[in-house]
Protein backbone atom coordinates (compact mmCIF):
# COMPACT_ATOMS: atom_id res chain seq x y z
CA UNK A 1 0.00 0.00 0.00
CA UNK A 2 2.77 2.40 0.97
CA UNK A 3 4.72 1.78 -2.20
CA UNK A 4 1.65 2.48 -4.30
CA UNK A 5 1.08 5.88 -2.69
CA UNK A 6 4.78 6.62 -3.04
CA UNK A 7 4.58 5.77 -6.71
CA UNK A 8 1.48 7.94 -7.08
CA UNK A 9 3.09 10.97 -5.49
CA UNK A 10 6.25 10.47 -7.58
CA UNK A 11 4.05 10.41 -10.66
CA UNK A 12 2.34 13.63 -9.56
CA UNK A 13 5.66 15.37 -8.95
CA UNK A 14 7.02 14.32 -12.34
CA UNK A 15 3.85 15.45 -14.09
CA UNK A 16 3.98 18.81 -12.32
CA UNK A 17 7.62 19.24 -13.34
CA UNK A 18 6.86 18.30 -16.94
CA UNK A 19 3.96 20.76 -17.10
CA UNK A 20 6.13 23.51 -15.60
CA UNK A 21 8.88 22.92 -18.14
CA UNK A 22 6.43 22.79 -21.03
CA UNK A 23 4.71 26.01 -19.97
CA UNK A 24 7.98 27.85 -19.45
CA UNK A 25 9.27 26.64 -22.84
CA UNK A 26 6.17 27.31 -24.84
CA UNK A 27 4.06 29.99 -23.18
CA UNK A 28 5.64 32.18 -20.57
CA UNK A 29 8.50 32.19 -18.08
CA UNK A 30 10.17 34.43 -15.51
CA UNK A 31 13.90 35.10 -15.59
CA UNK A 32 16.17 37.21 -13.40
CA UNK A 33 18.29 39.89 -15.06
CA UNK A 34 21.94 39.83 -14.03
CA UNK A 35 24.27 42.73 -14.53
CA UNK A 36 23.80 46.27 -15.68
CA UNK A 37 24.06 46.01 -19.44
CA UNK A 38 20.36 46.86 -19.84
CA UNK A 39 20.35 49.70 -17.31
CA UNK A 40 18.33 51.90 -16.96
CA UNK A 41 15.55 49.66 -18.33
CA UNK A 42 16.54 46.82 -15.99
CA UNK A 43 18.74 46.93 -12.90
CA UNK A 44 19.13 50.73 -12.84
CA UNK A 45 21.18 50.59 -9.65
CA UNK A 46 23.92 48.04 -10.07
CA UNK A 47 26.86 47.91 -7.74
CA UNK A 48 24.85 48.42 -4.58
CA UNK A 49 25.23 45.94 -1.74
CA UNK A 50 21.72 44.59 -2.19
CA UNK A 51 22.23 43.85 -5.87
CA UNK A 52 21.32 40.17 -5.59
CA UNK A 53 18.04 40.80 -3.79
CA UNK A 54 16.97 43.59 -6.06
CA UNK A 55 17.82 42.04 -9.38
CA UNK A 56 14.94 42.64 -11.72
CA UNK A 57 12.81 39.66 -12.61
CA UNK A 58 11.08 39.88 -15.96
CA UNK A 59 8.27 38.08 -17.71
CA UNK A 60 9.26 36.47 -21.02
CA UNK A 61 6.65 35.41 -23.53
CA UNK A 62 7.39 32.60 -25.96
CA UNK A 63 4.66 32.97 -28.57
CA UNK A 64 6.94 35.15 -30.69
CA UNK A 65 8.98 32.01 -31.42
CA UNK A 66 6.15 30.61 -33.52
CA UNK A 67 6.87 32.84 -36.49
CA UNK A 68 10.00 34.76 -35.47
CA UNK A 69 8.37 38.12 -36.14
CA UNK A 70 10.17 40.80 -34.17
CA UNK A 71 10.25 44.56 -34.37
CA UNK A 72 13.05 46.95 -33.78
CA UNK A 73 13.09 47.93 -30.11
CA UNK A 74 11.88 44.58 -28.76
CA UNK A 75 13.75 43.38 -25.71
CA UNK A 76 14.64 39.73 -26.27
CA UNK A 77 16.22 36.87 -24.36
CA UNK A 78 18.67 34.83 -26.42
CA UNK A 79 21.46 32.31 -26.12
CA UNK A 80 24.90 33.84 -26.34
CA UNK A 81 26.52 33.08 -29.70
CA UNK A 82 29.82 32.61 -27.86
CA UNK A 83 28.61 30.17 -25.22
CA UNK A 84 25.49 28.06 -25.62
CA UNK A 85 25.04 27.76 -21.85
CA UNK A 86 24.74 31.51 -21.35
CA UNK A 87 21.56 33.51 -21.82
CA UNK A 88 21.54 37.24 -22.53
CA UNK A 89 18.96 40.02 -22.56
CA UNK A 90 19.35 42.79 -25.10
CA UNK A 91 17.30 45.07 -27.30
CA UNK A 92 16.90 44.47 -31.03
CA UNK A 93 18.45 47.42 -32.86
CA UNK A 94 18.25 46.13 -36.40
CA UNK A 95 16.36 43.53 -38.41
CA UNK A 96 17.37 41.52 -41.51
CA UNK A 97 18.19 43.68 -44.50
CA UNK A 98 18.73 46.86 -42.51
CA UNK A 99 22.00 48.74 -42.47
CA UNK A 100 23.80 49.35 -39.21
CA UNK A 101 26.57 51.82 -38.67
CA UNK A 102 28.72 51.37 -35.61
CA UNK A 103 30.41 54.25 -33.94
CA UNK A 104 33.73 52.81 -32.87
CA UNK A 105 34.82 51.46 -36.25
CA UNK A 106 33.10 53.54 -38.87
CA UNK A 107 31.78 50.49 -40.65
CA UNK A 108 28.39 50.14 -42.21
CA UNK A 109 27.19 46.56 -42.52
CA UNK A 110 24.00 45.03 -43.79
CA UNK A 111 22.35 42.53 -41.48
CA UNK A 112 22.12 39.16 -43.28
CA UNK A 113 18.77 37.43 -43.69
CA UNK A 114 17.60 35.59 -40.60
CA UNK A 115 19.83 37.65 -38.33
CA UNK A 116 19.33 40.67 -36.10
CA UNK A 117 21.47 43.27 -34.38
CA UNK A 118 21.19 43.40 -30.59
CA UNK A 119 22.45 46.06 -28.23
CA UNK A 120 22.24 46.74 -24.52
CA UNK A 121 20.60 49.95 -23.34
CA UNK A 122 23.67 50.72 -21.27
CA UNK A 123 26.03 51.31 -24.16
CA UNK A 124 28.98 51.93 -21.87
CA UNK A 125 29.12 48.38 -20.54
CA UNK A 126 27.39 45.91 -22.73
CA UNK A 127 28.59 42.80 -24.51
CA UNK A 128 26.45 42.84 -27.64
CA UNK A 129 26.44 42.83 -31.42
CA UNK A 130 29.10 45.52 -31.38
CA UNK A 131 31.53 42.83 -30.25
CA UNK A 132 30.12 39.62 -31.73
CA UNK A 133 28.24 40.87 -34.77
CA UNK A 134 24.68 40.12 -35.86
CA UNK A 135 23.11 37.03 -34.28
CA UNK A 136 20.80 34.48 -35.92
CA UNK A 137 17.15 34.95 -34.97
CA UNK A 138 17.11 31.24 -34.11
CA UNK A 139 19.10 31.99 -30.96
CA UNK A 140 16.22 34.04 -29.55
CA UNK A 141 14.38 32.37 -26.68
CA UNK A 142 11.60 34.88 -25.99
CA UNK A 143 10.47 38.47 -25.73
CA UNK A 144 10.46 40.43 -22.48
CA UNK A 145 7.08 42.00 -21.85
CA UNK A 146 6.90 42.99 -18.17
CA UNK A 147 9.01 43.66 -15.12
CA UNK A 148 7.60 41.64 -12.22
CA UNK A 149 10.08 42.31 -9.45
CA UNK A 150 10.91 44.55 -7.57
CA UNK A 151 7.29 45.55 -6.89
CA UNK A 152 7.84 49.32 -7.10
CA UNK A 153 9.12 48.99 -10.67
CA UNK A 154 6.46 46.57 -11.84
CA UNK A 155 5.11 47.41 -15.27
CA UNK A 156 5.34 46.68 -18.95
CA UNK A 157 8.59 47.09 -20.86
CA UNK A 158 8.51 49.77 -23.47
CA UNK A 159 9.42 48.83 -26.99
CA UNK A 160 11.46 51.96 -27.60
CA UNK A 161 14.61 52.52 -25.59
CA UNK A 162 14.76 55.28 -23.02
CA UNK A 163 17.93 56.66 -24.50
CA UNK A 164 19.15 56.68 -28.04
CA UNK A 165 21.19 53.67 -29.07
CA UNK A 166 24.78 54.25 -30.01
CA UNK A 167 24.40 52.86 -33.50
CA UNK A 168 22.75 55.05 -36.03
CA UNK A 169 20.15 53.33 -38.10
CA UNK A 170 20.64 54.36 -41.66
CA UNK A 171 17.54 54.87 -43.67
CA UNK A 172 17.76 52.72 -46.81
CA UNK A 173 16.09 55.45 -48.89
Amino acid at each position, binding site marked *: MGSISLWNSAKKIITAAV*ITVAVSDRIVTVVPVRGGSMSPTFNPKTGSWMEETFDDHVLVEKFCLGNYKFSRGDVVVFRSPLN*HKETMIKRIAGLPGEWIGTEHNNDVIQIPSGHCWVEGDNTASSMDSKSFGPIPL*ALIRGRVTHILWPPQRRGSVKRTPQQGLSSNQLDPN
Partner: protein
Amino acid sequence: MTSRNMGPFAQRIIDFTKFLCYMHVINTYLISPVVTLGPSMLPTIDLTTGLFLIEKISTRLGKVACGDIVVVRNPQNPRFCMTKRVLGLEGDSITYISDPENNDKAKTIVVPKGRVWVEGDNKYNSNDSRKFGPVPYDLVEGKVFWKISPLKDFGPFWNK
Protein backbone atom coordinates in the same frame (compact mmCIF):
# COMPACT_ATOMS: atom_id res chain seq x y z
CA MET B 1 -26.95 17.25 -16.39
CA THR B 2 -24.38 19.63 -17.72
CA SER B 3 -22.14 19.15 -14.74
CA ARG B 4 -22.38 15.39 -15.04
CA ASN B 5 -21.26 15.64 -18.67
CA MET B 6 -18.60 18.26 -17.96
CA GLY B 7 -16.75 15.99 -15.55
CA PRO B 8 -15.33 13.41 -17.96
CA PHE B 9 -14.97 16.02 -20.69
CA ALA B 10 -12.86 18.31 -18.52
CA GLN B 11 -10.88 15.28 -17.40
CA ARG B 12 -10.20 14.39 -21.01
CA ILE B 13 -8.95 17.91 -21.73
CA ILE B 14 -6.65 17.79 -18.72
CA ASP B 15 -5.32 14.39 -19.78
CA PHE B 16 -4.74 15.64 -23.30
CA THR B 17 -2.90 18.73 -22.03
CA LYS B 18 -0.70 16.51 -19.87
CA PHE B 19 0.00 14.35 -22.87
CA LEU B 20 1.02 17.41 -24.92
CA CYS B 21 3.31 18.56 -22.12
CA TYR B 22 5.01 15.14 -21.97
CA MET B 23 5.37 15.15 -25.76
CA HIS B 24 6.95 18.60 -25.61
CA VAL B 25 9.48 17.60 -22.97
CA ILE B 26 10.42 14.36 -24.75
CA ASN B 27 10.71 16.19 -28.06
CA THR B 28 12.79 19.04 -26.68
CA TYR B 29 15.06 17.24 -24.25
CA LEU B 30 15.31 13.59 -25.29
CA ILE B 31 14.37 12.32 -28.73
CA SER B 32 12.68 13.88 -31.69
CA PRO B 33 11.73 12.65 -35.15
CA VAL B 34 12.96 14.51 -38.22
CA VAL B 35 12.10 14.25 -41.88
CA THR B 36 14.94 14.75 -44.34
CA LEU B 37 14.59 16.08 -47.84
CA GLY B 38 16.94 17.13 -50.57
CA PRO B 39 20.35 16.33 -52.01
CA SER B 40 22.76 18.02 -49.61
CA MET B 41 23.72 14.86 -47.67
CA LEU B 42 24.12 12.50 -50.63
CA PRO B 43 25.32 9.72 -50.58
CA THR B 44 24.84 9.21 -46.83
CA ILE B 45 21.19 10.22 -46.87
CA ASP B 46 19.48 9.72 -50.20
CA LEU B 47 17.18 12.05 -52.06
CA THR B 48 13.90 10.44 -51.10
CA THR B 49 12.08 11.50 -47.98
CA GLY B 50 13.55 9.78 -44.96
CA LEU B 51 12.45 9.61 -41.36
CA PHE B 52 15.13 9.73 -38.66
CA LEU B 53 15.35 10.04 -34.90
CA ILE B 54 17.64 12.62 -33.36
CA GLU B 55 18.75 12.62 -29.75
CA LYS B 56 19.14 15.86 -27.86
CA ILE B 57 21.11 14.71 -24.84
CA SER B 58 24.65 14.75 -26.21
CA THR B 59 24.07 18.16 -27.78
CA ARG B 60 22.95 19.51 -24.42
CA LEU B 61 25.98 17.99 -22.69
CA GLY B 62 28.28 19.52 -25.30
CA LYS B 63 29.37 16.14 -26.67
CA VAL B 64 29.14 16.95 -30.36
CA ALA B 65 32.23 15.71 -32.18
CA CYS B 66 33.62 16.07 -35.67
CA GLY B 67 31.99 13.65 -38.09
CA ASP B 68 28.60 13.59 -36.37
CA ILE B 69 25.53 14.06 -38.50
CA VAL B 70 23.46 16.74 -36.83
CA VAL B 71 20.29 18.69 -37.40
CA VAL B 72 21.01 22.42 -37.40
CA ARG B 73 18.56 25.28 -37.40
CA ASN B 74 19.11 27.34 -40.52
CA PRO B 75 20.81 30.60 -39.47
CA GLN B 76 19.34 32.32 -42.50
CA ASN B 77 15.79 31.25 -41.74
CA PRO B 78 14.98 30.20 -38.18
CA ARG B 79 11.84 28.37 -39.23
CA PHE B 80 13.76 25.62 -41.02
CA CYS B 81 16.29 23.00 -40.02
CA MET B 82 18.81 21.14 -42.09
CA THR B 83 20.83 17.95 -41.77
CA LYS B 84 24.59 18.42 -42.02
CA ARG B 85 27.84 16.90 -40.84
CA VAL B 86 30.00 18.62 -38.23
CA LEU B 87 33.48 19.15 -39.68
CA GLY B 88 34.99 21.49 -37.12
CA LEU B 89 34.56 22.61 -33.55
CA GLU B 90 35.79 25.84 -31.97
CA GLY B 91 39.49 26.33 -32.51
CA ASP B 92 39.75 23.95 -35.47
CA SER B 93 41.06 25.37 -38.70
CA ILE B 94 39.05 24.65 -41.81
CA THR B 95 40.18 24.89 -45.40
CA TYR B 96 37.48 25.18 -48.01
CA ILE B 97 36.89 26.50 -51.49
CA SER B 98 34.98 29.68 -50.98
CA ASP B 99 33.74 30.28 -54.50
CA PRO B 100 33.68 26.94 -56.35
CA GLU B 101 31.80 28.29 -59.37
CA ASN B 102 34.44 30.81 -60.32
CA ASN B 103 37.80 29.58 -59.06
CA ASP B 104 39.59 26.95 -56.99
CA LYS B 105 41.02 29.32 -54.44
CA ALA B 106 41.07 27.69 -51.03
CA LYS B 107 40.41 29.69 -47.91
CA THR B 108 41.39 28.76 -44.38
CA ILE B 109 39.62 30.01 -41.29
CA VAL B 110 39.67 29.13 -37.61
CA VAL B 111 36.25 28.33 -36.15
CA PRO B 112 35.56 31.01 -33.49
CA LYS B 113 34.59 30.34 -29.91
CA GLY B 114 31.17 28.82 -29.37
CA ARG B 115 30.63 27.91 -33.01
CA VAL B 116 30.74 24.80 -35.16
CA TRP B 117 31.48 24.27 -38.82
CA VAL B 118 28.88 22.18 -40.67
CA GLU B 119 28.93 20.95 -44.26
CA GLY B 120 26.80 18.67 -46.36
CA ASP B 121 28.34 15.45 -47.66
CA ASN B 122 27.39 16.47 -51.18
CA LYS B 123 29.94 19.23 -51.68
CA TYR B 124 28.44 20.30 -54.99
CA ASN B 125 24.91 20.94 -53.85
CA SER B 126 24.76 22.01 -50.25
CA ASN B 127 23.94 25.24 -48.49
CA ASP B 128 26.21 25.11 -45.48
CA SER B 129 28.97 26.83 -43.50
CA ARG B 130 30.90 27.46 -46.70
CA LYS B 131 28.15 29.91 -47.53
CA PHE B 132 26.97 31.32 -44.21
CA GLY B 133 30.01 30.70 -42.03
CA PRO B 134 30.30 28.81 -38.75
CA VAL B 135 27.04 28.52 -36.83
CA PRO B 136 26.56 29.12 -33.09
CA TYR B 137 26.56 25.86 -31.15
CA ASP B 138 23.09 26.55 -29.80
CA LEU B 139 21.61 26.12 -33.28
CA VAL B 140 22.60 22.43 -33.26
CA GLU B 141 19.31 20.74 -32.47
CA GLY B 142 20.47 17.16 -32.07
CA LYS B 143 22.46 14.24 -33.36
CA VAL B 144 20.96 11.84 -35.89
CA PHE B 145 21.18 8.34 -34.41
CA TRP B 146 18.44 6.10 -35.81
CA LYS B 147 16.89 5.62 -39.21
CA ILE B 148 13.23 4.68 -39.36
CA SER B 149 12.09 5.06 -42.90
CA PRO B 150 12.53 3.68 -45.54
CA LEU B 151 11.87 0.59 -43.45
CA LYS B 152 14.42 -1.61 -45.23
CA ASP B 153 17.18 0.50 -43.69
CA PHE B 154 15.64 0.57 -40.22
CA GLY B 155 18.40 0.61 -37.65
CA PRO B 156 21.17 2.61 -35.97
CA PHE B 157 22.68 5.48 -37.88
CA TRP B 158 25.37 6.90 -35.60
CA ASN B 159 28.53 5.78 -37.40
CA LYS B 160 27.57 6.70 -40.90
